[in-house]
């Protein structure tokens, strides 16, 4: 049985590459540099720090932060106090959470 193993994502993120952080903040949608692509794929494939998602509150207009459950059948966790009116801001928010989870370093706004 062929499975996709998220633990396979093992690219090591250099916590000193603040230039990549700045690049993502400037341009969350991309296209991105090679270095940033690898960081993002580590984050998105591994789900490190939690599989964050956006829950659509109003199509095309408003989204709340959510997190997928660890176990099938459990509810999607909804963070009603984290609401965004554009996807780029939400991407930046999640990027910071994941950078912290993967590097142990906090990104200051």
């Amino acid at each position, binding site marked *: 049985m062929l499975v996709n193993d998220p633990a396979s994502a093992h690219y090591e993120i250099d916590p000193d590459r603040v230039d990549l952080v700045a690049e993502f903040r400037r341009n969350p949608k991309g296209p991105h540099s090679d270095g940033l692509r690898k960081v993002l794929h580590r984050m998105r494939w591994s*789900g490190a720090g939690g599989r964050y998602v956006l829950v659509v509150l109003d199509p095309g207009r408003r989204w709340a932060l959510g997190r997928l459950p660890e176990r099938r059948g459990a509810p*999607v966790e909804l963070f009603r106090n984290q609401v965004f009116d554009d*996807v780029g801001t939400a991407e930046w928010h999640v990027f910071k959470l994941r950078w912290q989870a993967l590097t142990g370093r906090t990104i200051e706004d």
Partner: protein
Amino acid sequence: MVDTTAVLGYATPLVVSPGERVRFHLSSASLAAVDVAVVRVRCGDPDPAGPGLKLHAMKAAIDGHHPVRHQPIRPGSFMIVGDRPPLATLASFAFGCFLWPTLPGNGALQTVAARWDAASGAGWRLEIDGEGHLRLVVAGGGRRAEARAPQPLLEREWVFVAARYDAVTGNLALDQRSLDPQAGRDRSAGAAAVAPPALAWPSATPLTIGACAVGAERGRPLARDHYNGKVDRPRLHASALDADAMRALCEQVEPRPGDPLLVAAWDFSVGIGTEAVHDRAAGRLDGRLVNLPARGVTGANWDGGVASWTAKPAHYGAVHFHDDDLEDCGWEPDLALDLPADWPSGFYALRMRATAADGEPVESFLGFFVRAPLGKASAPVAFVASTATFLAYANSALRLDQVHAEAMLEGLIQLSRDDCYIAEHRELGLSTYDTHSDGSGWMYSTAQRPILNMRPRGNSFNYVNDTHVLDWLEELGFAYDVITDDDIHRHGAALLAQYRTVITGSHPEYCSRAMWDAFDAYQRGGGRHMYLGGNGFYWRIAWNPALPSAIEVRRDVTGVRTWEGEPGEGHHAFTGEPAGLWRTIGRAPQRLVGVGFDAQVFDRSSWYRRLEASFDPRVGFIFEGVAADERIGDYGLRNGGAAGLEIDRAEPTLGSPPHLLRVATADRIGYGGLPTPEEFRTAHRGLDGEQNANVRADMVFFPTAAGGAVFAVGSIAWPCALSPRGYDGNVSRITANVLRRFLDPTPFAGF
């Protein structure tokens, strides 16, 4: 936030003819009543950047306030044999079979076989306990005993199991023998216990395999404690046959029916395309399967000598049961509508509105289709509702369960209210993109259940995207009929032949042989086909000949597949036909429509540039009003362009015809464009769209026989670029140019 799930429902049949009766089956766990209205769908996409929801109220006889009730869904497959002599009067007995458990030790009780009366707590059960140990339980008259194997079963490894009860001595015994007992896989073990002798078995109790019966509801059998995995060659004997003798009985595909003590020898290799179960013993304890477990799957004796159940059914005598299989919700109908004979064909929906207890507005839909019946075409154009594709994707949990989803989509996953509902309500039954709770692929999909992504406000793929074509046809004033995949499969080319032009939508991905043949014959017979999508005619499917709206999809081992089939299981159970990609069966999409799926590109969509062939006067009509250097579709509602999501290219070696003109291409796709697995032979760097010109969307035209023609755009994103710029951008203009010319019967000259 609009609540789209407080009330759900489905229509039977899914596709209705004017004048026929359609029934609506509804359920709500929280509402007592809803306001319903039947609507005809022009645009089902609530995206504020697009046309928005456009629904025409039909003023149906059933419009109004109606009570609703909660109707549960009972998933999980099993085999059932109604109570028949000698089941109740057996004294001693032995049961044996081969098992391939897929979730042993998942914490839940899983029934292998049982004849158990839950009310009185009497009967016998062979089961796997929550820790994965096989257990035989017998009980009667308030007395109970059990034998439990000392070793847990191993996941996805064949094991022979035998259980017996001696009514004279009360001896209870259990044996399990691993078929590959080496390298740490040996779980062979036995267990014994002493039970009360002469236990009396309950009467009026069915025998089940794969679950334990607990009565009936609305005439449908109910069961619990579902098993996950395969069962092969189950046998029941009217004596306490020891394990060796039972093994010999199970090894025989066709045991001698003359043995008077052989109560049952079920052979799942008979009637693989059906729900019937055949008993080879003389007593004919034939059974039936409930909730569509997988058939046509390899048994313990499969040796790789053949790869199809049709070649050697005896090696395919297993059934794979899942605790989440679902064929039919079986809800009682709440409303029935005799469709007025003058209603136009189209995408229709029942709108259900209410106010939830928390004050939120509820607006939920259930989708159905009104067909233009064969022989009653009302327009020269038919738009195909890709009902096979809608079924294949029905209730997809891909973005919830598949860990690659966010990486593939190159951005945060956006979940709708529907997605959040599916996360918690797996009883709806998932899509053929998903895996069962045991990780095996979901091969069947039916329409007798709420389908959340086949209705207005649904997720923006397939159904919702296709309504952009309807919206465009209405906006530009083209009269059209709607026909469905169901009908093309059943009526074939005769249905298509009524129309001068047939339009397929954003993603006609799933196609039966009859459908493929129908399009082929239509095109060869002078028909004109506009394929306005991407990744079309890609997977082969089978419709169940006996079950309405049930399709089968097997992923096999190639193609963009979110699960991979087991070895030897690449043939449909419904029909015996090869499954998998049309490309691997010698019918690449290029052969039919000139282009075929080459890449996924979910990060951003691109635009087409005109190629030299676009200036060929024979196809000048396509680009009327479009400048030579114009970027075609550098806008759109799906990632900003008309070429994106899933894209197709022309390829002569795969069947793109010599007369094909590649008039435009979107070949600057970027690194987000990743080729499909069958597009490269060996992996090497540089295969992405930034570096690989074969990652592209081609716009093509070619003439077919008898004045027919095909126009294809090779991109799912195309239909969602029709409405921007006041329906007068170059995407709309090109589409309209082609449709007008296709409606003109003059043959295409010069080829």
